[in-house]
């Protein structure tokens, strides 16, 4: 299953988004700060022979979802203004909880505030997992935090680690309390080995400035992490013939660059032999 996320920065991006969906074959697309109604996008996709749906919003209007799954496969779960949790249930697939986020910006929230918000969001995820009866959970979107920030790494917050082997321990106990892990493959997006040092560029006047930030991330529960195709995780710099970056490599169409990844959640066939 292919996933795409883009913070569109309140710009008109339907043409570029349609190109991205066509070129990546994304099945589940999440867009934050989307300025369109969705109709133009669906029309553009239809003209390219793709039948996509817009999932209705209830309370989280800052995140839009477009998918080629029928809307009945997408169940509404917990949400607030800055996150929404859905469950995908399809034949032949393991049920999947999908958390979509657009968490508060560093411009308006201190790092501790972001960590506090992340810990509340983690509780919501755990409640949704308890409701659903499984921990097949993936969370992606604009966290407005780097993978190394407190809210991403602290145990009571998202507790997401760069090492799958360690995350597979499922949880760690601190002070008698159990804190569940996520695996965060987005650590692999840091640095300029592929000439794309992040998803968002910001030149800050403060002494500490990373310039490039990887705010747009995906984290995944150990239960389904083996299905996460690490090599598929990419920051996208073009949509068809349109470049999404300028000559300096900085975001051009929106102030964020999109991310793409694949997750295999195919249900394993149980052979008669293994049942014998």
């Amino acid at each position, binding site marked *: 299953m292919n996933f795409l996320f883009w913070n569109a920065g309140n710009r008109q991006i339907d043409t570029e988004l349609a190109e991205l969906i066509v070129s990546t074959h994304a099945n589940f697309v999440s867009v934050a700060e989307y300025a369109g109604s969705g109709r133009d996008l669906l029309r553009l996709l239809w003209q390219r022979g793709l039948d996509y749906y817009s999932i209705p*919003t*209830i309370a989280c209007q800052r995140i839009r979802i477009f998918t080629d799954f029928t809307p009945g496969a997408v169940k509404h*779960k917990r949400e607030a203004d800055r996150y929404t949790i859905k469950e995908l249930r399809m034949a032949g697939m393991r049920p999947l909880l999908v958390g979509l986020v657009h968490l508060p910006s560093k411009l308006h929230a201190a790092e501790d505030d972001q960590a*506090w918000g992340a810990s509340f969001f983690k509780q919501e995820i755990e409640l949704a997992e308890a409701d659903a009866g499984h921990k097949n959970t993936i969370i992606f979107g604009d966290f407005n935090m780097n993978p190394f920030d407190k809210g991403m790494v602290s145990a009571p*917050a998202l507790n997401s680690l760069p090492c799958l082997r360690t995350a597979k321990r499922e949880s760690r106990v601190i002070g008698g309390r159990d804190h569940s892990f996520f695996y965060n493959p987005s650590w692999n997006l840091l640095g300029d080995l592929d000439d794309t040092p992040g998803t968002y560029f910001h030149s800050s006047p403060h002494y500490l400035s990373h310039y490039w930030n990887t705010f747009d991330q995906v984290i995944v529960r150990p239960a389904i992490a083996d299905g996460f195709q690490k090599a598929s995780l990419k920051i996208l710099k073009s949509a068809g013939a349109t470049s999404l970056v300028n000559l300096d490599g900085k975001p051009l169409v929106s102030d964020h660059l999109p991310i793409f990844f694949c997750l295999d959640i195919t249900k394993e066939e149980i052979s008669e032999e293994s049942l014998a």
Partner: protein
Amino acid sequence: MKNLWPETFEENTRPSAKNLLEEQAKLLSKLTDGIVYAEVSAVGLLDVISVPRNEFMFRFDIKGKFLDDYSFRVLLFSHDITLYPVTFSLDEKIAIELGIKKSIEGYIKSIDAPEDLDNFLSAVLKSERVKSVVGSIIRLSK
């Protein structure tokens, strides 16, 4: 032995935010023919990194009878053992509608006395944001 305690103790009869919201939760269900309901539930303080220095914390969620496990968090509230002041942490859009400015801890409103609680909660529950959410739940439930 000397009695250092007061002569009598009086029960705190001030209406609590929890009771008030529980009443409103029941009303919502009646007003929407049971399609939409609300719940007040306790939040475990140990589960969060830091919280306002209050001892009792609750959340108020709106849910849909026919939307399995759907839940929208309207607000969190907390207070100490004396019930007041009550500190509310609001949904961003409700807060903006009510003209509450963002602080470092989020969209926070502190209510010092019971007489102010009704007005504040009425403004929250009558907000366009709450109306829109309830309306969307009704639409998606049909």
